[in-house]
């Protein structure tokens, strides 16, 4: 049986400076391979500049790989084939502020993928958009809104709505949780988990936070200067004490603990 997503020897090099044909190339990602199954959450970790975003962008179709292949359900993914990509892999960006078009209403923006990838009638499209808006916890009235009228949490919800409206199998999120308030962050995590439960979506999550990784990831992929130095189930990576780098990345911050009287707060209903 084929995997949902199989990445084979994917690598990416950049010219360090465009315009100088003879300038040396820099390696952003050295060839790496991994697989992802349906309904899994894969967390990608690593320090700044280790190539996390590059990897996410290649899988999301924003950038093209210099080498290697991506297979989806046993089919090869062609990087410029947007319709194949759209229906299966979608991307959420870090900066919800910039990833929405300031001059289009939310409804129009959500309609866009439907317009280009389905044959739905306008009424059906509208219905689908409304449904999706509700699914991410927003109202049909938001159709008429412009992005600048929404809070950052709502914007991130719209981005998620845009990602799931075509019912993809994989959603790639590049540091999508960083800029959010704690309460909103928890809401969005809940939303993502709910969606996974409902629709069986797999996530590829780029993040810095070991807490989040520990809580929701099924697998962890750790990059160090473009090299994949660990890829396995979460608990296995967490237990792995061989690599100091991995330990540093995952554990240092977990030490600091707060004694918290949990009996009291049991009063709070979920």
């Amino acid at each position: 049986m084929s995997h949902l997503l199989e990445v084979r020897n994917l690598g990416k090099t950049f010219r360090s400076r465009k315009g100088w044909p003879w300038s040396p190339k820099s390696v952003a990602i050295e060839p790496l391979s991994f697989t992802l199954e349906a309904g899994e959450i894969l967390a990608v970790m690593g320090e700044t500049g280790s190539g996390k975003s590059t990897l996410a962008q290649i899988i999301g179709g924003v950038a093209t790989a210099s080498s290697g292949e991506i297979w989806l359900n046993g089919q090869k993914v062609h990087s410029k084939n947007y319709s194949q990509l759209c229906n299966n892999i979608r991307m959420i960006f870090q900066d919800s502020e910039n990833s929405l078009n300031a001059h289009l209403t939310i409804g129009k923006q959500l309609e866009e993928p439907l317009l280009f990838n389905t044959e739905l009638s306008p009424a059906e499209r509208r219905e689908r958009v409304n449904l999706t808006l509700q699914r991410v916890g927003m109202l049909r009235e938001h159709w008429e809104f412009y992005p600048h009228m929404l809070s950052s949490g709502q914007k991130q919800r719209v981005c998620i709505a845009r990602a799931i409206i075509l019912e993809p199998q994989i959603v790639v999120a590049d540091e999508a949780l960083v800029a959010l308030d704690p309460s909103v962050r928890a809401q969005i995590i809940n939303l993502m988990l709910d969606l996974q439960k409902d629709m069986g979506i797999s996530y590829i999550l780029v993040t810095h936070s070991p807490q989040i990784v520990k809580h929701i990831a099924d697998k962890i992929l750790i990059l160090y200067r473009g090299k994949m130095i660990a890829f396995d189930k979460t608990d296995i990576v967490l237990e792995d004490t061989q690599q100091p780098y991995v330990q540093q990345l995952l554990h240092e911050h977990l030490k600091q603990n707060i004694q918290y009287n949990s009996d009291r707060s049991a009063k709070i209903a979920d």
Partner: protein
Amino acid sequence: MPQINLYHHDETPSPLQLVWKSYRARFLSMAALYVLLAMILVVILSPLLAPFNTSAQFSDAIALPPSWVESGNMKYLFGTDDLGRDMLSRLLIGGLYSLGLPILMVAVSSLIGMSIGALAGIDRTIKYQSLSRLFDTLLSIPSFLMALIIIAILGTGFNNVAFAITLSLIPQFIFVTRNAVHEEWHKDYVTASRLNGCSKAYLLYRVILPNVTPTLVMQLTVSLSVAIMDIAALSFLGLGIQAPTPEWGSMLARSLDEVYLSPWSMVLPGVTLFITIMAINIVGDSLRRALKERVNS
């Protein structure tokens, strides 16, 4: 929209409406806009409004001062020039050449320049930094100089001047459009739309265009004032629209010979030119300001 808003009880203005709202709030901006619109209207209607033919010479009213001066005559509101031609009619019809023609030229050159600029902006073949730097460098040659070169090649004359200025305005449009589109192109929202599988045309017209509209409108105002200045300066130097045509710059140039006998023939075209350019500049400036205010809020 018959739906009820549950959360927000305000209207939902689009960003462009917001810009307009903050533009509208300033008295000076609106005044300049009204002046400009009135000018354009007057220019469009000038063949109807002009009381006399521009070349009609009234030998009984040579170098008559404007009507508000004691020796003036109400028949000739702004007085007459040294050949006894009605100043008001000449100024009005002159607007066709000094304001109408630049508007036309800017329209044509913006159409051409923006199309090329938009294509260049999204074209990945011109991605080399040095190459685009080079274009930027070459585009820094002023439009007036380019117009002069074209006139040197083609010779003076109405058509050649119009052609020269139109041509010389195009590079600025290419430059501005290309940079604006290029900048937007790398923003996340365009990437997102691209990932939605949008066609290039959709990307350009629906996604990017609204975002660069204010920049382009601003460039339009800049180009318009440049075009007006250029054509007036060329005519003033005698290389533009030639004498009997009542272009404001050439009227100004020929009025110099009688500054003392009929000062109004120099003051009036100059003031008209000045007000027109100032109105355009204020509109452009206010637009920039309104835009900044929207971004800040």
